[in-house]
């Protein structure tokens, strides 16, 4: 019982410090910006640990963070092997292929107005669909290894990427395009010098949406058949044999992989679109 009380003490202390830092004079510094969310996360983890212990929750229902950390460090090789299979082979390959195809398709569509008018509404519609449901079909088509996972990812990221790129390419004003004409710029010149840079914020938006979709797609597809490695495989198998701490270790890997993946795209965006108003703070 005392752990439960302690949990709320920790919560009160954690939020008090967060408020003090945020309201304090140094709130605009980088240190404060990192410290507050980290402190928030640590508070939540501490509460989780204390509540699980205090309420004596069975580890097959919800393991404590310390137990998950133990399992995480103890199974590093297995986790790494699963990470390779699911994130690098399945998700990343599919992400690169899907986004590249969508980008090239967008360039092609952009040149033909008829196609643009036909494909854009359909693309917009498909981008809103629960495409995840095709996972079992693609697994039966492309086999059990990472190829079918990459295929699911390709289909999932294709439409959001396509729609965003096409919209981005249209995001120049008449004035700007006329200016390029007065320079007697060719199609490619005006594409590279004007329209692609103008489309970058949209393209990055598509790339960012796709990072999350790629991981979801690769993991779900593993539920429908896989070799004996991979994060989706491990999660569903360990649920079956009550290794719930291992499931949470995989979730931790997924969260880290997802955040790093997203973070890298954001960094690239900052580097390439530093001139755009959305990047000025």
């Amino acid at each position, binding site marked *: 019982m005392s752990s439960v009380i302690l949990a709320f003490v920790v919560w009160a202390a954690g939020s008090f410090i967060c408020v003090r830092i945020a309201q304090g004079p140094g709130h605009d510094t980088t240190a404060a910006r990192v410290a507050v969310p980290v402190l928030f996360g640590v508070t939540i983890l501490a509460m989780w640990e204390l509540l699980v212990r205090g309420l004596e929750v*069975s*580890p*097959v*229902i919800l393991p404590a963070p310390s137990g998950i950390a133990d399992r995480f460090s103890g199974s590093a090789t297995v986790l790494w092997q699963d990470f390779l299979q699911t994130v690098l082979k399945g998700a990343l390959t599919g992400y690169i292929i899907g986004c590249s195809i969508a980008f090239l398709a967008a360039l092609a569509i952009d040149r033909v107005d008829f196609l643009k008018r036909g494909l854009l509404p359909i693309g917009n519609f498909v981008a809103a669909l629960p495409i995840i449901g095709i996972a*079992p079909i693609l*697994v*039966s088509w492309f*086999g*059990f290894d990472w190829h079918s996972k990459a295929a699911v990812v390709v289909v999932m990221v294709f439409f959001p990427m396509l729609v965003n790129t096409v919209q981005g390419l249209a995001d120049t004003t008449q004035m700007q395009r006329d200016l390029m004409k007065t320079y007697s710029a060719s199609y490619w010149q005006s594409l590279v010098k004007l329209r692609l840079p103008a489309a970058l914020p949209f393209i990055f938006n598509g790339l960012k949406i796709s990072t999350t979709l790629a991981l979801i797609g690769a993991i779900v597809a*593993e*539920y*429908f*058949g*896989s*070799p*004996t490695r991979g994060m989706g*495989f491990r999660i*569903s*198998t360990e*649920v*079956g*044999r*009550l*290794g*719930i701490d291992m499931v949470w270790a995989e979730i931790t890997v997924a969260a880290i992989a997802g955040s790093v993946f997203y973070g890298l795209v954001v960094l690239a965006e900052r580097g390439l679109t530093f001139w755009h108003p959305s990047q000025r703070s």
Partner: protein
Amino acid sequence: MKKLMIGAMALGMGTGAAHAADEVTLQLKWVTQAQFAGYYVAQEKGFYEEEDLDVTIKPGGPDIAPEQVIAGDGADVITTWMAAGLAARERGLPLVNIAQPFKSGGLQLTCLKESGIETPDDFPGHTLGVWFYGNEYPFYAWMAKLGVPTDGGAEGVEVLKQAFNVDPLLNKQADCISVMTYNEYGQVLDAGISEDELVTFNYLEEGVGMMEDGLYVMEEDLQDPEFVDKMVRFVRASMKGWKYAEENPEEAAEIVVEADETGAQTYEHQLYMMGEIAKLTAGSDGSLDPADFDQTVATLLSAVSPENPAITEEPSEGAWTHMITDEALK
């Protein structure tokens, strides 16, 4: 007969009015199908009601481990395979087998003849489909017994996590797949592959058979006389349901199709399944034969798989009990 029914109904209603029936929640290992016909029949024919029980049957699925559900108080009693039940016990979840409606097992490995597999010695170098979710223990025990590594290569076998269907065999993505006699084997035949194109290995005949669907409860619940009494009535009614299903396969199949909430099951397939299931339940009156238990444990321990052990030591005392069935079958 009719009079008797009315009498029974009147009795049921009479007791129902006096006090609420005892609630029992049963978590199944898999989706609604004739594999669980006995429970659905007992429900539908009022056998549970006669025992003054209000039974909720929860279907399972790929991500649902019955052991986890019972640990989280989501069920009073579960059906699972003995290897999985013992594995959970060794991992600190004290499950107890209170009844064993399945006398023999239906797990098989079916291979295409054209892959060149004739005996288990031909496995190395081939790709085998295996179910996980706690069903992989017999397979790994078998491979350990054969001395075949399971990490691919020319000497070993490549293991695929087979999902839920027989597509890997039809699409030739795997040379062999796991099938249950009562379900997937029929699907392979239905898909147009004839029996003489197949080579089938039965786990029981290979000496690595294990007890399949049994009823398991939490050890601590058995301290409570009221719970024990409830389980006695539950097992009695369930076994009545099983025997009724064996004798009336058509009606049982209909009941199962009616109970299936996905609306995906067909009567033909469930009838086939019921016929095969009846062969597995035929020899059992519900009580576990200790010899069968010992045989399963011996198989698991004779070939402890290095990477996928179900158990590594003799199960602790009390992994099964006759206290329920002795009372129920009196």
